[in-house]
């Protein structure tokens, strides 16, 4: 079976997480050289690299389920060369921004949700997935410390607090939309791969946002988003990611 085969429900479920990690990692690493200060250039793109590592581990699981040996080539085919309609990423990670406040708020929102998502598969009946979750969670506590340490002083000053809350208005609807259950989730729950639905994370997310930003927020009454549909920002992002590949797809490095 090739990497481009029609994915099964379980594969769809894993791809939704893998693609989120992959694109979030890419977005974070694009701050290298343009973050507000040198140490933050390093920190933010390091965190991006961690997310890319999580994506790699999840893509490898998808390949194993397909009976394809995970190699640089087969992983690249899955990560970079599917058609846009075959990606399962959320708008939260596709959204393009050059605003540091938005990038930082998205970092906090994404990592808060990511932590909850890993918890849903920490006791997975699919042992390799539980192992990936354990490894990722060790890195995630550091990611959350980073986001918290930056937001603490920024929310304490009136001017930056206003910028952060403006960014929250933009990012929060996308964060809730990312909790729309991906295809294959019910199958994953039925088989014990996951212990619950991402939809149930809306409550914990609402509570965490209210506490973190000290502002009233409410989860939308219905969360509907289709991970089979790409936002306008996806194509330019993917084109940047493929830029070197596209010079010569068959080149050997």
């Amino acid at each position, binding site marked *: 079976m090739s990497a481009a085969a029609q994915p099964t429900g379980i594969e769809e479920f894993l791809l939704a997480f893998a693609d989120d990690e992959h694109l979030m990692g890419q977005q974070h690493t694009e701050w290298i050289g343009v973050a507000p*200060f*040198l*140490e*933050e250039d*390093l*920190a933010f793109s*390091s965190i991006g690299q961690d997310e890319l590592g999580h994506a790699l581990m999840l893509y490898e699981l998808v390949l194993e389920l397909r009976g394809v040996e995970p190699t640089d080539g087969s992983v690249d085919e899955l990560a970079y060369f599917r058609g846009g309609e075959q990606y399962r990423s959320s708008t939260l990670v596709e959204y393009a921004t050059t605003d540091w406040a938005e990038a930082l708020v998205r970092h906090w929102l994404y990592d808060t949700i990511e932590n909850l998502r890993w918890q849903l598969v920490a006791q997975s009946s699919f042992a390799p997935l539980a192992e990936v979750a354990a490894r990722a969670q060790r890195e995630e506590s*550091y990611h959350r*410390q*980073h986001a*918290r*340490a*930056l937001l*603490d*002083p920024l929310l304490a000053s009136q001017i930056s607090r206003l910028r952060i809350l403006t960014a929250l208005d933009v990012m929060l609807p996308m964060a809730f939309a990312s909790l729309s259950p991906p295809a294959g989730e019910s199958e994953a729950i039925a088989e014990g791969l996951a212990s619950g639905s991402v939809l149930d994370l809306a409550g914990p997310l609402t509570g965490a946002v209210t506490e973190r930003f000290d502002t009233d927020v409410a989860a939308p009454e219905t969360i509907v988003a289709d991970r089979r549909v790409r936002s306008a920002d996806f194509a330019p992002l993917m084109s940047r990611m493929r830029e070197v590949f596209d010079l010569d797809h068959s080149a050997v490095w």
Partner: protein
Amino acid sequence: MHTYEVFLKKDGRDEFRHAGALDAANDALAEVHARETYIRRAEGDRLWLVRRDHVIVADVDFVAPNADKPHRHHDGAAVAARRKANREASE
């Protein structure tokens, strides 16, 4: 913002050594950025951060006078020279 001095050591080996400095808004951010900037390639297993304004800096005039007390340098050179002179005189 505060300036923090960064010290590293390898676990069970050597003493803490000064690695550099960085500016950070708070202690938690200083930890994060020291980790990314100074130990991203596992240059140390232990990390100390000291706020520069917590460092006790002695006045230069207070420190300097001890530079001109050669009698405190007991490296044996004077004794060795005297013994050599005695030995040569008795030959």
